[in-house]
């Protein structure tokens, strides 16, 4: 295992779930819940002859950034595609509940310092959603997560961190959308329906899932940034993601609330304007929208480095 400094300097994309968990909080502050030594494996995989993992594919725990406890959920895409089952789904839900509990405890212990000590939840998504081997339990866990999100609302900010190979799809796609803040690298992807299924539904002529450039234009970090579906676009480096978390931890709850894209009637109305535009425009490619938002040469955007891109890009204007 790399030491913390080396971790910070390394690629988020190449990092496994545990490395990401360690790198998203300050050096030496991470305590893992249900660590590998607890051996809390999925009880459903062995009967199906599918390999198990001691952490069931999700690393959970708590660390610190300054005085802020940062509750971590970090998914491992290499283990069954980062999919959500009964145990790791339960771990995710309970991490949110612990964050909420910590908020109550901090309010009681430090009534005047809540903002400076306010907990934060950071979820490193790398998942296609429900784990088919235990599909029903996985599905129910998704609903529990959304329920817990609502409980954290206005109290504990939740940050979606997306920059891993599998991306964030299926049911976890709307879980990510429901967070307060989304930070991505251009290698990150968020969506609901995966590229293969879109190809299957619409035909290869309409959507060729093997065309990775198209896939990234449709669901990747840059597209999400232009659409205001991600708040921060960073380089593929663990420290860059860490820096955003540190920044968000110190923002006011009001500032954080303003970064949301859904979660109120007003926000839904704003999204309906976008749907109206898309319905009228019938874009064949996300670049049609990039152009609409004022990017003269949309085809140049994917080729730019993140820094160049951030300098020149024109985004959807929010109300």
């Amino acid at each position, binding site marked *: 295992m790399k030491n913390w400094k080396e971790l910070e300097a390394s690629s988020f994309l190449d990092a496994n779930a545990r490395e990401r968990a360690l790198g998203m909080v300050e050096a030496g502050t991470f305590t893992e819940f249900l*660590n590998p030594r607890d*051996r809390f494996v999925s009880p459903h995989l062995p009967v199906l002859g599918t390999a198990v993992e001691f952490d069931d594919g999700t690393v959970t725990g708590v660390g610190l950034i300054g005085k802020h406890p940062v509750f971590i959920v970090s998914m491992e895409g290499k283990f069954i595609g980062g999919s959500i089952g009964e145990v790791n789904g339960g771990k995710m839900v309970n991490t949110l509940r612990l964050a909420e509990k910590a908020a109550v405890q901090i309010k009681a212990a430090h009534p005047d310092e809540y903002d400076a000590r306010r907990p934060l939840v950071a979820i490193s998504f790398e998942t296609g959603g429900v784990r088919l081997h235990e599909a029903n339990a996985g599905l129910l866990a998704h609903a529990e997560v959304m329920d817990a999100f609502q409980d954290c609302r206005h109290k504990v900010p939740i940050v979606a961190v997306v920059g891993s190979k599998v991306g964030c799809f299926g049911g976890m796609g709307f879980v990510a959308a429901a967070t307060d803040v989304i930070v991505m690298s251009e290698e990150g992807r968020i969506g609901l329906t995966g590229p293969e299924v879109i190809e299957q539904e619409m035909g290869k002529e309409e959507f060729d899932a093997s065309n990775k450039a198209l896939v990234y234009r449709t669901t990747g970090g840059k597209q999400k940034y232009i659409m205001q579906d991600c708040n921060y676009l960073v380089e593929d480096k663990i420290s860059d993601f860490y820096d955003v978390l540190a920044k968000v931890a110190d923002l006011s709850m009001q500032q954080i609330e303003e970064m949301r894209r859904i979660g109120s009637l007003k926000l839904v109305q704003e999204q309906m304007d976008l749907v109206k535009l898309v319905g009228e425009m019938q874009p064949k490619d996300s670049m049609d929208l990039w152009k609409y938002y004022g990017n003269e040469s949309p085809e140049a955007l994917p080729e730019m480095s993140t820094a160049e891109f951030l300098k020149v890009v024109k985004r959807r204007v929010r109300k």
Partner: protein
Amino acid sequence: MALTTLEFEFKADAPKSIAKEWSHLGVTGSGDLEVLMERKDLGGKTKAKVVTPVVGFDAIWEKMINKFVVENNVGDVSIEINDDNATPIVVYMRLRQALAEANAKEGEQA
């Protein structure tokens, strides 16, 4: 279709345990595995438990881990592996890395 669980015991010539109480390395991904090593008083022996979907490689697992234990003089260690079709070279490399990790000082690169 169920998973296979294999358990072995090995003895090296000059066994030496690991520095950390326990240590973990790797991910159970396709063609890969995770290793959990724990320091345990086993009278110099090494115990290994392997959970794998692979059928028919029991003897090879035993030889592979034995080679690792003997070549690296491992002892008083419990090794647990969750495997998903790792090839012998991957098994060997991961075990070596896990051992280095288990002997690394805290916060130091293995």
